[in-house]
């Protein structure tokens, strides 16, 4: 299947998901065109709505890249969520431990610390995959829960802010906070940073031997070995890059949006990244668009509920359908459907779970 037919199939999958969602809105007694219009106007053409979309899109984009790069080497990184948490933790610890640097040094160092945290968390399943043949899907997935609880422990214990009513850390110093992109809003420069990473990764895959070789491993591992590519090292490299990207998404949440390390601070962005990645057909240059789309859906859902009266859970259905239909669109005679569908379905379940947990908290 060439790239063009693949993109067409993905577009058809998207339209189908929106159509089925439209039917549900109709059954709910509302005009689907009106509802979608409100949703997209609110999330993309309204200043505050778009600001909200960008805030959500920033971690989604990095989390999407964190799935794309390992997947291009044939490794399925379901662990973005955990890598975000550990990245946020490392970034926050660095920011709180050394609070007096000028922002110009401090912010890059916080990013490096967060990237190191995410990479460290990804290195464990990467090593097990490369040298022990362990299934990376299971290991990365389960390590998410460990990471979430480590952060919960940290902010409820050693990092707990004085007099905090909720498990969160002290604020990071003002010098370390990311600049605001859209005045009077929360929108920080995180998405721009993500765009820069996107371009770098796209060129790396296309124009450097190491990027080309990584792609080769994912496409045909035997041919890659025949071309002299060290598979084990490539798998580890891909996962380290993925972990770093997700880790930096964690830093963006901490020093860009909340200015503290919160208990359960990521809203399932690591799992959203999987949708972003597959929606982009694993092409990094498309990921910003798919991240914006997914972020827009979730940012506009609330407004749509208020303005039109359609329950916002319809949008959850649409998101779910997007996952399933895009996965179906990507199934070629050469890929086993099960290998893509299963983790994606699991992803959907986990997202719900995280959201529920958060609400309960």
């Amino acid at each position, binding site marked *: 299947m*060439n790239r063009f037919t693949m993109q067409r199939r993905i577009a058809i999958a998207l339209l189908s998901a929106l159509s089925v969602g439209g039917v549900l809105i109709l059954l709910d007694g509302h005009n689907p065109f009106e509802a979608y219009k409100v949703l997209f106007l609110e999330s993309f053409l309204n200043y505050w709505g778009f600001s909200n979309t960008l805030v959500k899109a920033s971690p989604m984009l990095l989390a999407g890249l964190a799935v794309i790069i390992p997947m291009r080497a044939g490794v399925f990184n379901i662990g973005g969520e955990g890598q975000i948490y550990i990245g946020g933790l490392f970034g926050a610890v660095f920011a709180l431990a050394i609070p007096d640097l000028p922002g110009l040094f401090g912010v890059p160092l916080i990013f490096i610390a967060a990237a190191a945290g995410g990479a460290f968390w990804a290195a464990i399943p990467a090593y097990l995959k490369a040298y022990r043949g362990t299934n990376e899907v299971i290991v990365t997935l389960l390590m998410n829960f460990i990471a979430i609880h480590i952060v919960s422990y940290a902010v409820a214990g050693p990092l707990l802010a004085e007099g905090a009513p909720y498990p969160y850390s002290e604020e990071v110093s003002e010098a370390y906070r990311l600049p605001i992109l859209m005045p009077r809003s929360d929108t920080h420069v995180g998405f721009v940073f993500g765009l820069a990473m996107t371009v770098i990764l796209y060129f790396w895959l*296309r*124009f*450097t*031997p190491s990027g*080309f*070789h990584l792609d*080769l491993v994912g*496409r*045909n591992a*035997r*041919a890659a*070995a*025949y*071309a*002299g*590519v*060290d598979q084990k090292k490539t798998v580890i490299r891909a996962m380290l890059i993925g972990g770093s990207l997700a880790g930096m998404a964690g830093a963006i949440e901490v020093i860009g949006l909340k200015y503290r390390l919160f208990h359960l601070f990521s809203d399932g962005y690591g799992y959203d990244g999987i949708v972003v990645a597959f929606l982009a057909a694993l092409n990094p240059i498309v990921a910003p668009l798919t991240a914006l789309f997914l972020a827009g859906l979730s940012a506009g859902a609330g407004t749509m509920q208020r303005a039109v009266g359609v329950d916002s859970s319809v949008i959850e259905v649409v998101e779910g359908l997007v996952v399933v239909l895009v996965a179906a669109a990507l199934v070629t005679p*050469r890929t086993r459907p099960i290998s893509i569908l299963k983790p994606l379905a699991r992803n959907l379940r986990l997202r719900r779970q995280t959201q529920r947990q958060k609400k309960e908290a």
Partner: protein
Amino acid sequence: MDSFLKVTGIDKSFGAVRALHNVNLLASKGECIAILGENGAGKTTLASVLIGLYQPDSGEIKLGGTPVSVTSPAKAIEHGIGMIHQHFSLVGAMTAEENILIGLPSTKRGAEARARIRQLCSDFDFNVDFDIRVTEMPVGMKQRVEILKALFRDVSILILDEPTSVLAPTEVAPFLKGVRKLVANGCLVFFISHKLDEIREIADRVMIMRHGRVEGVLPVATTPMAQMSALMMGDKPTGETVETPKAKKARNDTSSAADALVVSDVCLMDPGGAEILQDLTLSVKAGEILGIAGIDGNGQTELSEVITGLKRQTSGAIHLNGTEISSASIAARIADGIGFVPEDRHAEGLVLSLTVEENMAFRSIGEDRFMSGGLISRRAMHEIASDVVAAFDIRPPDPKLNASALSGGNQQKIVLAREVARARNLLVVVQPTKGLDVGATEFVQNQIRAVAHSGVGVLYISTELEHVLDISDRVAVMAFGRITGVVDPENTTLQDIGLLMTAAPEEVL
């Protein structure tokens, strides 16, 4: 004569490529029809239409007078049409029996069925190991399992796509005998082949295809080979002349040349402890073509992998131009100028989801000719590939197509072109002519000769004995993981080689 199978006006296009153009055919039970044509002539496409893998754009298939619509291979089997593909469709993790019985209701998979499989096996003189899984089988045995699978399903029309290309020379005659037995029992057999002598031996009629059209359906007995060949090749100029023995002599005066490759006392054990290679020693001089003949599965593939670094020998040493490379990585050996055309071009030699030009480059990507300013130059990649596509007449001539869109013969040309360009010191080729037609074989052989002529040592591993004898300066015969003898191709008889191929090492040494 009543025609059992009637094919009328079949058309099939893939995008802009017209693979079949108004194909008509009448055939009766109890005859063997050979389908002859160059690579990409439409032979395999026609077969795929007959067994329901592809749906024709237009046209009709009638069986016994009634129009049938063969919409899937399962339907084809219902109608009694079976096919043995060039690329096998076996489940690697299963045994021969499991593969043969796959998809049948459990009532038909009992002891009786198993007994019948063994009966078929002995009827057709097929040597199949029923205790191992398909992945562990040599290619020739896998094909025998494929054939058994079709025979077991009582097909009345059997399509064989290049069936003998993987068989050992000694297996060809019994196989052809088996096919004749099928025909005598009223089966209609289509025999897709490039080998005129085999067609001569087995087929009643020959259907010649070119560029998707039927050029003629002729009785084999009364049609001279030259006419068949002319119809198949069309009016294009024939390939370069075959090297004369004198020219070969002139080229292979390598007595004073240095050794390009020396393999000394190499042993290789598989994880189960079986000895795949046993104290194997050989040398290839610069500019020399050393042929390795042998029956499929006697360690030839493993030898190529040990030399190129894909497998690590248990003991022994390998020297390239006098430097030991016994423990060098694959990448280091690539950098040392070892070109390698592996046996399985689909699984190993190519990345089908990449374009033709990326496939031309992927094993050489760090080389200067593909780089500019430290980055991969997509333009250089395209230009180099365009030149090669023209020089090797790769069709369709578009380097930006995915490799999966090309026919098997054209895919093989991509691999060969890439490795020929890479090989500065040594070229290892395994089964380079497998599945190629006469013209393409000659082309491949000439390319390899040219490489040797430029001073590169060539190790030419193939089970197609006549090709090995034709091209090699010396021929080493392999059996049971050893070299059982090295002969001069000019002064040796097939009988001698056959003995070396089959005799146990103890009897020969």
